[in-house]
């Protein structure tokens, strides 16, 4: 188990290192980092100080390591627009993004998993067909189109809900629904196919042939086994929460991290972009790590296999 954890943790660190390397390479290819990070209107002393603290006069491989060092110590540069530390700026926006993404995630899980399980158990029924149809739509309708259609219906035509901003909880309804619906459909489709596969396994048939009540078979055997692929998808959804928020926050002018990223990209506010990039990588890596741990809990075979390897 320890070795299993160590390997997973090592892989997570490696991924973060890859993202940092990616940022370093892209930053280097795009020009002088000092002016790029600090902006053109910074006094020469500041540039000199920056160059020194980031070690820009040193050979490239040393810069690469100092870059790691700077990031590890939380020095991610200042925003070009208002001069505040980029980390602070991003941190300020996190609650707003969480206010959308967490309810949206709960919506996805709360609708997607039960719908998928139900659809798998009643294959070919009306719910099953609806789930499949909505799942296709969830994939082909981009979130900005869905969001705008919801605005047209609920804000413009019916006037029930506001179309943008973040003043009351009502403002959060449309963005949460926009984010949640597509994800719920995708999750339902995955859960459905995972369940169908598990239900076809011999041990399920054996259990029900032995006279175990069907409900107990589902709860005791089918659900835990179908949970493994489903957990992977949920993990990926958690990891890509911020990415999903980028478009939806822009549609609804919601002042979260995603909106900040779009603004920062159009202003080429590199310190902020870089910070968000690392934030996304960290979220993703953490989510993957949790998924891996859950695997260990869900699948005793994996735990035992890893345990054997350690001895």
């Amino acid at each position, binding site marked *: 188990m320890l070795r299993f954890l160590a390997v997973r943790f090592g892989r997570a660190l490696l991924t973060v290192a890859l993202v940092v390397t990616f940022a370093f390479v892209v930053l280097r290819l795009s020009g002088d980092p000092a002016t*790029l990070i600090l902006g053109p209107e910074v006094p020469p002393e500041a540039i000199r100080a920056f160059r020194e603290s980031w070690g820009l006069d040193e050979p490239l491989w040393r810069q690469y390591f100092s870059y790691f060092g700077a990031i590890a110590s939380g020095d991610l540069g200042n925003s070009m627009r208002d001069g505040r530390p980029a980390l602070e700026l991003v941190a300020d926006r996190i609650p707003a993004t969480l206010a959308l993404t967490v309810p949206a995630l709960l919506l996805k899980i709360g609708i997607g998993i039960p719908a998928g399980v139900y659809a798998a158990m009643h294959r070919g029924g009306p719910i099953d067909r609806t789930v499949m149809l909505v799942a296709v739509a969830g994939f082909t309708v981009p979130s900005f189109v869905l969001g705008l259609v919801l605005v047209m219906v609920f804000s413009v035509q019916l006037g029930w809900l506001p179309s943008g901003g973040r003043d009351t909880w009502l403002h959060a309804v449309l963005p949460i629904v926009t984010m949640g619906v597509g994800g719920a459909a995708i999750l339902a489709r995955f859960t459905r196919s995972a369940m169908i596969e598990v239900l076809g396994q011999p041990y399920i048939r054996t259990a029900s042939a032995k006279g175990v009540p069907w409900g107990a078979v589902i709860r005791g055997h089918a659900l835990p086994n179908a949970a493994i692929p489903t957990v992977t998808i949920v993990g990926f959804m958690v990891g890509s929460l911020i990415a999903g928020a980028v478009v939806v926050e822009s549609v609804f002018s919601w002042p979260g991290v995603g909106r900040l990223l779009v603004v920062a990209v159009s202003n080429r506010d590199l310190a902020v*972009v870089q910070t968000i990039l690392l934030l996304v990588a960290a979220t993703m890596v953490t989510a993957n790590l949790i998924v891996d741990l859950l695997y260990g809990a869900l699948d005793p075979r994996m735990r035992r296999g890893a345990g054997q390897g350690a001895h």
Partner: protein
Amino acid sequence: MALAEASAPRPGLARPPLGILLALLWIALMLFLAVFGDFVAPQEFTAMDLMARLSPPFTEGHWLGTDELGRDVLSRLIASIRVSLIIAFGATLISAALGTTLGFLAAHFRGWVEQAVLMLADFQAAMPFLILALAVLAFFGNDLTLLVLLMGLYGWERYARIARGLAISAGAQGYASAVRQLGGTPRRVYLRHILPNIASTLIVSMTLVFPEVILLESGLSFLGLGVQPPMTSLGNMVGYGREYITRAPWILLSPAVVIVLTTLAVSSLGDWLRDRLDPTTR
């Protein structure tokens, strides 16, 4: 061309269902508009008619209405279809070529080359592509060539995995190792033998990646970070049309419908082809 060949009736292939025929019809229409758009478009897509601003659809001369500058929505739509399809085509081809090459390299050299390719593939699959794309655009600024190249990085890992797996199994004992043992160079083995043999699988993957690239490009353009004016694309039209969502919803509705129908058509075609031609992928 490849699609047309693959979908042509063959012995053992049932006639495509109605939905697939409709999808093919829609794709044909889109390709026709992308190629011959200039001859079909009623007007120049940048031509302004300030007297006829925000005319609703079915106005004479403007079947899909006009936008805030009096430009004909149908003409702009045709121009957008062309740009979006060209970007998606170019990007899909780049990504297929890149991924297949890396997959072949991994299969040929094994060892650390293979590990490096697989690690990059895992990374690419795990990291949200939109964020990486936005970061690159922020650092390098915006430009159409860069946009196509960037989109061309999308999905390469799927081709790489497929190409690697199939090349390894072909080389293990089959025709590929026979050609190698005849004295053929790796170039001949991979390009003349393995590539044609796995082409159908790769084409199926391309039809599945293509709609995702359309969605990605339209998303970026919607955010104002993809295709830049005066050029126009489907996502771009939706993005600018959003300002007039209350007064002139037709500006954004027609490109939105085209995005949804095109992704739906291409991805159902891809699913169908996968089930028919290539039971090996998933």
